């Protein structure tokens, strides 16, 4: 019952389970897709923010390049007039922390500083920048070219300015009217604000890396610019996640999973992004820069899908509900099935009972039919065999009465005597018959056939008068049968007796006795090679009382009648097949109801 219940439940629940798993997978993948799209958008926004903030500097640098500085402007003694005009410009530009003019030798010739309080002041001291990268890199800068330095920290007089000032320096060459290069203009773009904006309001950790894998921005600020700050351990993304770093640089895809974590990346190539800016009369900016940044969002595995809890919870709830409902349904169905099975079983039982009763009825019916036939037979015997002598008696008696003299009367007596004798014999035979019919409680037992046949055969050896007879027996079909010993002995005796009596004098007589099982019934075959019977002519008459078929052979005509009666009284039956001159076979079929 439990097994059936379980199987049925599984059958119903399995589709739901599969659907739930598919749904969960779908929800997960959809959620991650959404997340990736969102994060990519966020990164794209950041990228745009950077470009938008850098763009004005490009335009400004171009402006100052076209400003028509003269040779005197590159002499610190004669360029004091620049303070007013350039100062006004720098004040409006919050993110510019310095504005400088540097001559061809790398010496500052003009310098504006933005103080902490936001005031723009002309620096009284000028520094030598001839060893700085932005000077060295831009010495060959031609007309209309703009250089953007990497994002790094500001140095003053060769020392890191504290607090650290992340900077991008924009540089343009300055040429006089004749195209002779006077020097360069350098604008320091303070990236603190930009970096703050990038780091602000991030749902997931954001980091900004340069081409070498150094941290430019990170939620762990100690990692920022560690490659530039002495006395601090140099922490780079490249060293922390070398395999991931390789993958990020190689793969086209904008996201990747690593150890369950999701990484979203976006590349920002300054040259590519900023070269698209038209600066003057549709002329595009000619920018020289090595700035190539990587914007990364890092989503830890434990943070992935946290907002899916609700959906998964609902799915789980549906499943639990489903499990209970289906369990209940399965239980009901299994119970119904068991009930149905029991019902069918009980029906079967009733059916069996009915069949049994039908069998009993049939049995009784057969017995009654048999009894009816026997009664008819009895009636027939009385009609034919008993009436004949009694009518003779009455005829004789009336003749006696009318006899003229004693002599005549006397002549009737022997006739009368023989008739009464015949009546006596008939009555005796009838008694035997009626006794068989009436004997309901005839004793039956298991009888071994072989000894019985042998004993009976021995009885007849003498009557053969020294003639020999072939006896063939085959008891392979069965050996024992439940029957009345007296009847069976009488049957065998009569059949053997008949076989001997009606033997063919021209042949060596033989009898064959064989047992067999036919349709589950025990069958006994009794075959002789005697004179045979013309069955077309006599049919079943051979089993009738006082029926004699052979004129020259003595016989009372009682034997086969008795055999049939005895067999039928115990549910057995006898049939005959025969051919004149060939022999006769009697087939006895025993009832198998016991």
């Amino acid at each position, binding site marked *: 019952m439990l097994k059936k219940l379980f199987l049925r439940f599984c059958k119903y629940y399995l589709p739901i389970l599969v659907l739930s798993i598919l749904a969960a997978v779908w929800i997960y993948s959809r959620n991650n897709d959404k997340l990736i799209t969102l994060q990519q958008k966020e990164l794209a926004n950041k990228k745009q923010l950077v470009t938008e903030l850098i763009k004005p500097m490009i335009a400004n640098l171009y402006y100052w390049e076209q400003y028509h500085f003269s040779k005197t402007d590159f002499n610190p003694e004669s360029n004091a007039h620049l303070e007013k005009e350039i100062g006004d410009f720098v004040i409006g530009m919050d993110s510019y922390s310095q504005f400088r003019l540097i001559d061809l030798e790398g010496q500052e010739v003009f310098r504006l500083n933005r103080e902490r309080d936001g005031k723009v002041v002309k620096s009284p001291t000028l520094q030598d920048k001839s060893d700085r990268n932005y000077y060295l890199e831009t010495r060959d800068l031609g007309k209309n070219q703009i250089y953007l330095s990497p994002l790094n920290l500001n140095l003053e007089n060769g020392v890191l300015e504290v607090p650290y000032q992340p900077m991008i320096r924009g540089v343009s060459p300055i040429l006089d009217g004749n195209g002779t290069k006077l020097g360069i203009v350098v604008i320091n773009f303070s990236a603190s604000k930009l970096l703050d904006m990038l780091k602000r309001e991030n749902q997931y950790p954001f980091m900004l890396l340069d081409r070498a894998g150094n941290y430019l921005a990170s939620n762990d600020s100690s990692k920022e610019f560690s490659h530039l700050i002495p006395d601090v351990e140099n922490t780079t993304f490249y060293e922390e996640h070398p395999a991931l770093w390789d993958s990020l640089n190689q793969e086209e895809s904008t996201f990747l999973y690593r150890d369950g974590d999701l990484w979203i990346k976006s590349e920002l190539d300054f040259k590519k992004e900023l070269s698209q800016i038209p600066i003057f009369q549709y002329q595009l900016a000619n920018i020289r820069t090595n700035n190539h940044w990587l914007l990364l969002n890092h989503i830890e595995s434990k943070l992935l899908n946290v907002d899916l809890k609700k959906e998964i919870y609902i799915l789980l709830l549906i499943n639990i509900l489903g499990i209970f409902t289906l369990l209940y349904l399965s239980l009901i169905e299994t119970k119904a099935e068991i009930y149905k099975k029991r019902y069918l079983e009980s029906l079967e039982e009733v059916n069996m009972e009915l069949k049994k009763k039908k069998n009993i009825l049939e049995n009784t019916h057969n017995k009654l039919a048999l009894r009816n036939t026997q009664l008819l037979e009895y009636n027939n015997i009385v009609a*034919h065999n008993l*009436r*004949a002598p009694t009518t003779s008696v009455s005829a004789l008696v009336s003749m006696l009465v009318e006899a003229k003299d004693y002599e005549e009367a006397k002549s009737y007596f022997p006739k009368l005597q023989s008739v009464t004798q015949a009546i006596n014999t008939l009555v005796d035979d009838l008694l035997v018959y009626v006794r068989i019919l009436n004997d309901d409680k005839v004793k039956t037992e298991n009888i071994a056939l072989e000894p019985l046949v042998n004993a009976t055969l021995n009885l007849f050896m003498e009557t053969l008068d020294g003639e020999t007879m072939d006896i063939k027996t085959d008891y392979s079909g069965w050996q024992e049968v439940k029957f009345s010993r007296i009847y069976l002995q009488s049957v065998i005796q009569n059949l053997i007796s008949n076989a001997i009596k009606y033997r063919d004098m021209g042949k060596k007589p033989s009898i064959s006795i064989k047992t067999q099982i036919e349709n589950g019934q025990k069958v006994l075959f009794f075959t002789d090679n005697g004179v045979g019977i013309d069955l077309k002519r006599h049919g079943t008459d051979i089993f009738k009382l006082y029926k004699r078929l052979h004129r020259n052979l003595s016989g009372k005509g009682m034997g086969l009648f008795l055999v049939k009666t005895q067999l039928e009284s115990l549910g057995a039956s006898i049939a005959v097949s025969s051919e004149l001159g060939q022999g006769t076979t009697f087939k006895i079929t025993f009832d198998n109801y016991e």
Partner: protein
Amino acid sequence: MNELHFFLIDDDEIFQFIMKNTIQEINPEIKIQFFTDGEKGIECLKENLDAANKLPDIILLDLNMPFMDGWEFLNEYKSLKSDLKKEINIYLLTSSNSQQDVERAKEISTLSGYLVKPLSRDGLKDLIQEFPTAEWYENEL
């Protein structure tokens, strides 16, 4: 007119004796021949197919006999009938008064009637007087 010629086919010798007596009492001129079974009767008919004077007018036929009973006799007789040079009337003469036997007898066209034993002197007289009977004949008991 010649007196009637009877065949009595019956294995009961006592009955033969009784019939012989009865017929003699009615008319000693009546000729009667006895056969103890059907086969003997048939053989006699076969031997005398053309000898009309040796064939009977009436055959009284018992039913219950060994070797060849009345029914079998009638069966054999059917094939002989057309060869016989004399019209023969056959009456069953049996101790059986069972309706089943009477019905069966009526089905047989070669039969003229059904007589139940005992056949009294008067009964026999009636038969002789009415002979040849045109319709189905049964004696009164």
